[in-house]
């Protein structure tokens, strides 16, 4: 895929009309003004009220939806449990990209983090009491190297009590181990010459997979390869980690032992690798769901964890469906759905019945 700079440069070929005669003959009408200070303050106060209400709502729903006490962790495979709130990022709004929560049936949508809170790659802890996410540590204007620095953070499920675990220019995709003691993530942290890049599906952003204790200690590198590896996800029994590797224009879902050995491919092709969740394990660990481009459309596909039996479960013409997440009880798959026509509605959340 051509890089963004090249694509934008191509617009230099668009002929522009000569308007100087119109400029000198027209009667100016005026420039729209920015909202005044009073309006900005009012909007901010209203946003805070909404966030506070959403947090309270989220705590009740998470507590009611979990089948296990919040303090209990399990080294065993996670049994299917009740479906709870789905967190997702809204990227089509006029004022930014807030993080919202919604019930699996589409009801009760609430904003959890406002548009000014930089959040990416939200991952629930196995017991549903915490989230890990990518947040901003230092803006480019404040950092010595002029680049924004990001970090893996852990917070309570309502966003309170945030703790920074890591820092780097390309930190991404935290994933909890099933027993909640470790977090895998992707990063370019061992090569300080790598600048901020488009992590995920971009061959020039050479991220590797790392794992650390859930308190941020004992960071260990699992992959060491010039190709980008990212979006790690633990298998439900904790024995393996699946991830995406980008080779040229191809994204490959691979799986390795939890110690980084025995890497083997599961599925490859035009897999959507750049989203929040390129793929998702089924709750019992036997299958993986992912989105893939096929001639003429996009398909949601399922493959067995040993790489066999790949098949399509859902497709829709004129729509890009990505970011699948398997529900905890295995009955549903949530995904994002984006019409390709520019005048269509923005991205929508959808849910499909799992086969």
């Amino acid at each position, binding site marked *: *895929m*051509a890089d*963004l*700079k*090249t*694509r*934008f*440069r*191509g*617009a230099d*070929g*668009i*002929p*522009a*009309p*000569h*308007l*100087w005669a*119109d*400029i*000198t003959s*027209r*009667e*100016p*009408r*005026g*420039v*729209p003004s*920015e909202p005044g200070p009073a309006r900005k303050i009012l909007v901010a106060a209203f946003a805070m009220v909404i966030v506070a209400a959403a947090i309270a709502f989220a705590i009740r729903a998470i507590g009611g939806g979990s089948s296990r006490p919040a303090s209990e962790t399990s080294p065993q495979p996670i049994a299917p449990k009740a479906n709870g709130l789905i967190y997702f990022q809204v*990227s*089509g709004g*006029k*004022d*930014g*990209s807030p993080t919202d929560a919604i019930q699996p049936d589409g009801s009760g949508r609430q904003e959890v983090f406002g548009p000014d809170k930089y959040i990416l790659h939200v991952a629930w802890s196995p017991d549903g009491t915490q989230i890990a996410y990518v947040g*901003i540590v230092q*803006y*480019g*204007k*404040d950092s010595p190297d002029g680049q*924004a620095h990001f970090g893996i953070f852990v917070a309570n499920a309502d966003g309170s009590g945030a703790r920074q675990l890591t820092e780097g220019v390309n930190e991404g995709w935290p994933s909890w181990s099933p027993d909640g003691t470790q977090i895998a993530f992707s990063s370019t942290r061992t090569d300080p010459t790598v600048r901020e890049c*488009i992590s995920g*599906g*971009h061959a020039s952003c050479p991220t590797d997979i790392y794992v650390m204790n859930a308190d941020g200690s004992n960071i260990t590198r699992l992959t060491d390869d010039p190709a980008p590896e990212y979006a790690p996800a633990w298998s439900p029994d904790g024995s393996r980690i699946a991830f995406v590797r980008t080779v040229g*224009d191809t994204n490959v879902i691979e799986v390795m032992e939890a110690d980084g050995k025995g890497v083997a491919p599961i599925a490859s*092709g*035009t897999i*959507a690798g*750049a989203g929040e969740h390129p793929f998702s394990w089924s709750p019992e660990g036997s299958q993986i769901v992912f989105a893939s*481009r096929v*001639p*003429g459309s996009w398909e949601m596909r399922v493959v067995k964890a040993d790489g066999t039996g790949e098949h399509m479960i859902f497709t829709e013409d004129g729509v*890009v469906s*990505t970011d699948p997440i398997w529900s905890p009880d295995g009955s549903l798959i949530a995904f994002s759905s*984006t019409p*390709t*026509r*520019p*005048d269509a509605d*923005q991205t929508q959340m959808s849910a499909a019945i799992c086969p």
Partner: protein
Amino acid sequence: MAGLEDMYEEHGGKLWRALFLYAGDREITSEALAEAFAQALRRGDELRSPERWVWRSAFRIAGGRALETTAREDEILDTRYEVPEETTQLLLALPQLTRKQRVALVLHYFCDYSLREVAEITGSTPSAVGVHLHRGRKRLRELLLGDDDG
């Protein structure tokens, strides 16, 4: 006036294309550019940095008009004879981004403005521009990957 006319001859075409990338509509683009320059002419020496003022005003005018309408797909597709296919894909994808993401991407990638300069033009902060750029790139990546042939 001679200074503004020289500025128009030197930068008018680039500004028009940048506004078209942002608004996706020829009428809005031409109106915003002409209005911004006409306002600058009326203000004369009152403007300390006419170039920056014109760019900022033009994007604000285009942003206000663009709120009332949607990008013209037919006009975007009309450009496909003048630009590479990969740029047509970009033009079709841009309207699906937020206005703030679009203006940050256009000024940074098409016009080579730094984050600080983008912030000055848009009346924002470099850090906020950085966030819009990051999210806009991510969104574009998703959309453009969707336009690639399998």
